[in-house]
């Protein structure tokens, strides 16, 4: 089944709120070799003006992933995980993610184009905080291979 072009513009529900925990930020920071104190030490983060430890820039992927799971769960998507490669990734920030944030993501599929039998699926996850303010938009290009 080819990738369904009707995914573009489809309305997806916002993801359930994700509460960013301090130990989760520290765990993620260790995993990406992020040893700067702003990621680990609340006092260091507060000295920079943040309420708690600051998540490394790519932590937004953890929230965006909830939207990619929504996309894969669409029964008519034509996207099969075993044929998916991550082609490109981009983040556009209004502010960094900080422990204590309660974040919600909203998915849109902005484009699907075919290239040599592969489909390039561009999706955006707009991530907002509990006040509804924009935090970061995460954009992925998934390369979906043709049927084997």
């Amino acid at each position, binding site marked *: 089944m080819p990738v369904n072009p009707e995914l573009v513009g489809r309305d997806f529900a916002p993801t359930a709120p994700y509460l960013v925990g301090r130990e989760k930020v520290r*765990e993620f920071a*260790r995993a990406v*070799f992020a040893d700067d104190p702003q990621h680990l030490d609340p006092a260091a983060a507060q000295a920079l003006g943040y309420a708690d430890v600051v998540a*490394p820039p790519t932590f937004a992927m*953890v929230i965006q*992933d909830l939207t990619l799971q929504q996309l894969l769960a669409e029964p008519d998507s034509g996207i099969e995980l075993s044929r998916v490669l991550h082609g490109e990734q*981009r983040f556009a920030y209004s502010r960094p993610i900080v422990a204590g944030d309660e974040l919600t993501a909203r998915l849109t599929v902005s484009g699907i184009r075919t290239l040599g039998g592969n489909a390039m699926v561009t999706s955006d996850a707009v991530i907002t905080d509990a006040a509804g303010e924009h935090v970061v938009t995460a954009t992925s290009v998934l390369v979906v291979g043709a049927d084997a």
Partner: protein
Amino acid sequence: MTAPAVGEVVAERTVHLTRESLVRYAGASGDFNPIHYRDDVAAAVGLPGVLAHGMLTMGLAVETIVPWLGDSGRILDYGVRFTRPVVVDPEHGADLVIVAKVGAADDDILRIDLTVTSGGTTVLGKAQVRVRAT
């Protein structure tokens, strides 16, 4: 901070990845795709070996500049293309070498270009971070 000149290297580091690093990232990120920890699955789908998560490479690359930035909140946007896989040998692991250089600068915004290589091969394309100049 004096504005750095275009072409200046602002930060660099080498990160040694092992299979343990990949398992740690899988747990922290929730990405449990078995091509990142099982040789048999990687081989079955035609890969040259167990690969590092692209998002691990992207994440550790940008972190190279955070101590130099001082405040990671100066980062406006960050994007990469995943151009070459990073194979992590079960015994010897893999080294990633990151060099961060000023690619463009104006009064308000610096573009930092990240070069990320493994075994002499560049693994990320167009890895660029736009940051507030101050």
